[in-house]
């Protein structure tokens, strides 16, 4: 694997991102709405209580869809050392990303136009898909090419 420092650094950062998302129930010291993790996530998330998971009775710092995206990014990033070789010069990571984004758009649109009502679990899953796809999309950049012997 190449760029292993970058991979390790980003892994630590994505892990922290997921841990911060867990909010007051994980970190303690205040209720969900006033917690520092809630403030930290406010630029990127609407943080509506009825669309968020609760941990230890406290609202998480992000809604279920954002939590899905962050968890998906982390899960995909963890898989890079294993999955990387299957992505080199392949089109499926891009296809996966496009499909995941389409599923996201369809899910949100269906809810906006009141065709169906999504749940916290469905929001989490449809969020996790594009997050996972973003990481997998980058996987080939961490794969070392085999050396070719010159004649």
């Amino acid at each position, binding site marked *: 694997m190449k760029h292993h420092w970058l991979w390790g650094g980003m892994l630590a950062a994505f892990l922290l991102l997921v841990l911060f998302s867990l909010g007051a129930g994980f970190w303690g010291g205040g209720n969900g709405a006033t917690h520092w993790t809630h403030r930290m996530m406010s630029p990127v998330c*609407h943080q509506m*209580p009825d669309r968020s998971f609760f941990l230890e009775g406290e609202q998480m710092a992000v809604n279920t869809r954002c939590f899905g995206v962050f968890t998906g990014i982390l899960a995909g990033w963890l898989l890079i050392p294993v999955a990387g070789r299957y992505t080199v010069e392949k089109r499926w990571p891009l296809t996966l990303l496009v499909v995941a984004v389409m599923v996201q758009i369809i899910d949100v649109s269906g809810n906006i136009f009141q065709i169906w009502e999504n749940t916290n679990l469905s929001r989490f899953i449809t969020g996790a898909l594009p997050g996972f796809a973003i990481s997998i999309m980058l996987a080939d950049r961490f794969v070392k090419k085999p050396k070719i012997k*010159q004649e």
Partner: protein
Amino acid sequence: MEVEEYNRDEDASFSFAAAWPSIAVVGGIFSVISFVISLFFGYQQINAEPTGSFFSPMILSSAVICLVTMFAGLIAVWHYTKEVSPKMKLGQGALVGFLTGAFLLIVSTVLNELWHLIDPEYTEKMMEAFIANVEMMDLPSDVKEDMIDSTAQTMTNRSFLRDIFVGIPVPGLLNMATAMIGVKLFAKKEEESF
């Protein structure tokens, strides 16, 4: 695309100073876009009759701004490869992405502060409109109270420096990820030495 990623021995030719215009231009443009979107939906919320719909202009603006600003890192890398040098390494792209996210957040926070000089009652009016909408929602009263408390806390107890200091890591990190995708899309793979 006639672009290629940096080779190891060409590292020195990556000028960090040369990346700043891309960071500033793209970060600046995206912060203005997010500020305008937030004002547009904000005043729409203020002037709309409360409907009790979950998809209020405020919620929509939050989702749209998040989606739009996530791609600033990718565009900053595209701008750099187009205008400065087609060569960029993955780590350099990540740095450009983080700084673009940070710059974007700082400028949009400054613009928000400036807007309060133009319309000092903006936050108060937004809060009232939001509460009126939540009150109309078909939800249990404790959930409504939580929603109102949570939003009131976020909107009222603000500090400029704290918003910037605490707010930078998340947009910075998300833009790092999209910037690395930008490197993949707009820069060629590094040549291997055999």
